[in-house]
């Protein structure tokens, strides 16, 4: 009760706590509510901290490759690639053509998988009873089976090595990949028909959680969240790493920067990813799948530091590595997109309702493995 004695609706201090059905993992938001409106929101992280970067300093360069799968456990292939890219940049290893194409195929399949599930979870936060998620999971099963056929594990692939990939793509798995890519446009049309024009969804997501363009740039937000606010920044186009410059694909950019834009940007990015995959699967060359001079054991990286980054489905995923020339890295740091995209969560949620904070968190699409490392 404030001093003036008028009815001061007590602000309600609620913690959308670590154990909450829609925080995509162990993540807590301390929300101060005035009725239904959010007055203050403090994200609390660290529940899933596994000391990844300190561990890497005790292991050989190859030893921490399987641990990169556990960073963003939705997209293990792109994590591997980012780490391999960083090390290759420092050692100057030349990656053969076929390996580059395989890497692009794996990365784009991961992008499809991640975006479809991200939208699915966003919609189940909106209340659609898991129907969109399960449509997305049905397609994801096929991609995971492909990953298992190739790399041996569905989600923890540990597939890429410094200088290439661990196992080659034989014809059977290539055919399987082509079949997956062929199914995908039909799934996207069905998904859009189910959800995109749904008025309830439009009412729930349009003009909710608006992220302005310069706030996105200042907070170094990257990935679909930034592109939805009008920041045309896609590392595949900027760095042209791998063989991305050989494929023609567009990068969708939105203007309003609200939750609906983030939802649409992910759908359009999936359509672009399908285009890239078709081109990559069409003209994948023969040849070695790993650099012949790549040593497996006793692999030493010349002294110095390096920063390799790729356009992971969630944003710019970078690895900053410092080596003393030994078999173990001196310093190993990951630049996770989810963590940095989370910093602006409060600015998007102020003034919105409780129901909206959950959707905004869903639209930012974070994975706690990457946030807490």
């Amino acid at each position, binding site marked *: 009760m404030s001093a003036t*004695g*008028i009815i001061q609706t007590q602000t309600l201090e609620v913690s959308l706590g670590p154990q909450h059905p829609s925080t995509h993992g162990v993540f807590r938001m301390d929300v101060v509510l005035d009725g239904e409106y959010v007055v203050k929101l403090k994200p609390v992280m660290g529940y899933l901290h596994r000391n990844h970067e300190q561990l890497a300093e005790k292991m050989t360069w190859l030893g921490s490759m399987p641990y990169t799968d556990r960073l963003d456990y939705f997209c293990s292939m792109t994590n591997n690639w980012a780490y391999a890219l960083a090390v290759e940049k420092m050692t100057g290893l030349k990656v053969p053509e076929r390996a580059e194409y395989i890497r692009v195929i794996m990365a784009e399949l991961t992008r499809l998988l991640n975006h479809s599930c991200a939208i699915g979870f966003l919609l189940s936060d909106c209340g659609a009873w898991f129907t969109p998620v399960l449509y997305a999971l049905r397609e994801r099963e096929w991609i995971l089976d492909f990953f298992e056929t190739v790399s041996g594990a569905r989600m923890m692939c540990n597939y890429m090595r410094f200088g290439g990939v661990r196992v080659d793509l034989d014809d059977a798995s290539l055919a399987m990949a082509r079949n997956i890519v062929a199914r995908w446009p039909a799934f996207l049309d069905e998904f859009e028909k189910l959800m995109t024009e749904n008025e309830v969804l439009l009412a729930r997501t349009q003009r909710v959680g608006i992220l302005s363009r310069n706030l996105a740039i200042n907070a170094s937000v990257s990935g679909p969240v930034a592109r939805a606010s009008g920041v045309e920044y896609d590392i595949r186009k900027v760095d042209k790493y791998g063989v991305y410059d050989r494929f023609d694909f567009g990068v969708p950019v939105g203007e309003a920067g609200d939750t609906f834009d983030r939802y649409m940007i992910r759908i359009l990015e999936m359509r672009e990813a399908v285009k890239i995959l078709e081109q990559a699967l069409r003209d994948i060359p023969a040849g070695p799948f790993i650099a012949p001079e790549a040593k497996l054991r006793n692999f030493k990286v010349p002294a110095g530091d390096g920063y390799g980054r790729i356009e992971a489905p969630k944003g710019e995923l970078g690895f900053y590595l410092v080596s003393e020339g030994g078999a173990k890295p001196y310093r190993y740091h990951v630049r996770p997109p989810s963590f940095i995209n989370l910093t602006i969560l409060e600015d998007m949620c102020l003034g919105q309702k409780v129901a909206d904070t959950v959707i905004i968190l869903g639209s930012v699409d974070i994975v706690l493995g990457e946030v807490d490392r």
Partner: protein
Amino acid sequence: MSVPLGYYLMLGGVLFCIGLCGALTRKNAIAVLMSIEIMFNAAILNFVVFWYYLHNGALTGQMFALFAIAVAAAESAVGLALVISVYRHYRSVDVDEMKALKG
């Protein structure tokens, strides 16, 4: 329906008195309002009883009870609004404390 009229009247009377007792003894304004509600209902019960036993030709008894219910509901709404504004002023609904006849 072999219940004589007297039973109903006594029932109404007892209920009215319980309501009165509550209104007089309770400290909390809302409890007082609740007791007044009880008194209202006791009266409305009598309306219907008299209609049923004495004049159940015309429906005037029921109509009157209907209007009485409506008035009672309106009254409780205004009463509670008053209690809330008083609460905001005194920060308590203790009947005894509301002594100062401030404007």
